[in-house]
């Protein structure tokens, strides 16, 4: 009797092997008790859709391949305490009504999705109405060329308290997609070459994004309708194209953007309808526009940022200025510093006249780089007439800030 109780409280391990006794993952799951571990040996398993409705640990050895045969979703998880680790998912079905995913999670808690590989998944990891999930060290790659034939890499809908760390996502529609996701940490991920956005979220409050790389995505990063965003030490690099943004902020409020690097984006930050965001210690270099600050934004504060090598530092579309841009470093600043306190003695106006004209009349862009525009810009610098009077840095730094040193 005692032995029975002890025996049942210990988890069993079931081995699934193409060459062994248990050949099927599905049957192993049916026979497993809650809390058991299923070890999958290397091989190729084409079992269609696998339902998982009890707490199990599924571990792959040397990346066994789970093939969706271009038709099926693979795991559908509807249970708490599930771990999926070390598997390789390929060829998930493409559908326009259902969001078929390599791993779909519904109404669950305490999930660990670790060290998996995904190739040509429609959706990679699709999680809805769930919480307490750890999605770590997964590699997702898709080779589809058109947007409607591929889903998002990591897709969360109505989730909270998740941790998404150190994943690599390439070639999906959106690398990471959140809707109604709260209190989540996103860190150390690399989202690269996705067809639409590297990161895309809406209505996802109080999340923290740290040390992520968003590189070369079709339209960069777009985030909307959210409060309490923390963006720290991320890199937004080479999101280049006519409608591509390093980061697009729409209706974002009460947030912090700190220590990020915006490099070679056609627009570093585009913001509209956003309020009370603190931008500190960011680096903007070699962007087309470093910041496009629409007049619908208010009470934002740009402080101690480095601007260098950008074609336009700041562009705006109106004369109303409710934002502050003080104590930044601007490589175009031509003022002087008589008392040697490293603060320029005359204010810097980061908005060039020509960017104002183009904002008003897009066709005027055809005169760009002409001698006339150069002269007009110079004249405007001397006597501001069109550019917003108040959009200026009163305490421009004479030297670039060294953020690397400060961080160490």
């Amino acid at each position, binding site marked *: 009797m005692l032995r029975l109780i002890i025996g049942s409280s210990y988890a069993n391990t079931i081995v699934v092997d193409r060459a062994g006794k248990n050949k099927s993952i599905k049957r192993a799951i049916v026979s497993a008790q809650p809390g058991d571990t299923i070890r999958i040996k290397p091989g190729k398993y084409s079992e269609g859709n696998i339902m998982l409705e009890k707490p199990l640990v599924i571990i792959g050895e040397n990346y066994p391949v789970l093939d969706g045969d271009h038709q099926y979703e693979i795991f559908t998880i509807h249970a708490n305490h599930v771990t999926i680790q070390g598997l390789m998912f390929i060829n998930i079905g493409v559908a326009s009504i259902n969001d078929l995913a390599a791993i779909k999670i519904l109404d669950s808690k305490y999930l660990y999705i670790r060290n998996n590989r995904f190739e040509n998944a429609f959706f990679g990891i699709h999680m809805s109405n769930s919480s307490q999930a750890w999605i770590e060290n997964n590699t997702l790659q898709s080779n589809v060329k058109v947007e409607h034939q591929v889903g998002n890499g990591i897709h969360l809908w109505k989730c909270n308290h998740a941790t998404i760390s150190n994943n690599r996502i390439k070639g999906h529609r959106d690398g990471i997609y959140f809707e109604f996701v709260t209190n989540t940490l996103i860190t150390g991920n690399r989202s690269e070459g996705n067809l639409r956005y590297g990161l895309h979220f809406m209505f996802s409050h109080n999340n923290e994004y740290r040390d992520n790389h968003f590189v070369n995505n079709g339209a960069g990063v777009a985030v909307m309708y959210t409060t309490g965003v923390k963006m720290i030490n991320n890199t937004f690099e080479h999101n*280049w*194209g*006519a409608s*591509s943004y390093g980061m697009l902020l729409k209706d974002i409020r009460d947030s912090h953007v700190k220590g990020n690097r915006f490099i070679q984006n*056609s627009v570093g930050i585009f913001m509209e309808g956003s309020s009370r965001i603190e931008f500190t210690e960011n680096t903007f270099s070699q962007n*087309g*526009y470093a910041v496009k600050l629409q007049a619908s934004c208010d009470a934002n504060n740009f402080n101690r940022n480095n601007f260098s090598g950008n*074609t*336009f530092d700041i562009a705006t579309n109106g004369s109303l200025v409710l934002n502050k841009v003080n104590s930044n470093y601007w490589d175009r600043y031509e003022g002087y510093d008589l008392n040697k306190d490293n603060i320029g003695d005359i204010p810097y106006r980061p908005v060039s006249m020509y960017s104002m004209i*183009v904002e*008003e*009349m*897009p*066709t*005027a*862009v*055809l*005169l*760009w*780089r*002409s*001698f*006339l*525009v150069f*002269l007009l810009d110079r004249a405007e610098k001397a006597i501001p007439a069109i550019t917003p009077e108040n959009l200026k840095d009163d305490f421009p730094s004479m030297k670039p800030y060294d953020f690397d040193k400060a961080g160490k």
Partner: protein
Amino acid sequence: MTRIVKYIFYDILRTRFILLYTAFLLVSTIALFQLDSDPGKVVMSLLNIVLMVAPLISIVFATIHFYNSYEFIELMLAQPVNRSVIFLSEYMAVAVSLCLAFIAGVGIPMLFYGAGSTGFTLLFCGVVLTLVFTSLAFLASVLTRDKAKAIGIALLFWFYFSLIYDGLLLWVVYTFSDYPLEKVTISLIALNPVDLARIIMLLRLDISALMGYTGAFYKDFLGSNAGAIASVGILLVWVIAPLAWARQIFSKKDL
């Protein structure tokens, strides 16, 4: 004709101005390449030289040269040589020497540091603008007999194409900004070789992503085969038309 071209060419080389021009281009191009490691950005800065300096030097030099060789021209006219031949020889010699100076001054550093196909387009634009402004210089020279006046006209041409025209264009865009202007402006651009060369260059650089819808429209047009042929054709018209007109005036002119 080749003999006349040769004589004029040697004459130009003897004044050393062309060598100075080559050296200036060489030094500034090398300096730009050394200041910035990104060839794309260097091409961007070189664009200013191509659009401003090359036309200015070409037009002023060609005008002055024409008046300095007035005696030579008169001497040649005393021989049994066709007026057109003399005129075109003058043009050929001046244009070829200016183009060679430009290609040597900008092209050699480019070859050395590597600037790719955009660099090649830049060279092409520079050469074409040199030819266009040499033509305009010859036109200015035959329009009047007074050297100072001719230089004035030449400078006016330069001012017009690099500054005044753009001002007018900006005014048009401003006045009619409520209308779709893409097609209109692209034809207006064709009326100014400097603008046309500038747009061709800008669309070759990845900076064109900043040009929004207008840029995309131009890219669509100028990027297509028909558009490329049309733009090159228009630039050639800009070389040939002023020259043909000048030749006609010259052949009837009472020297």
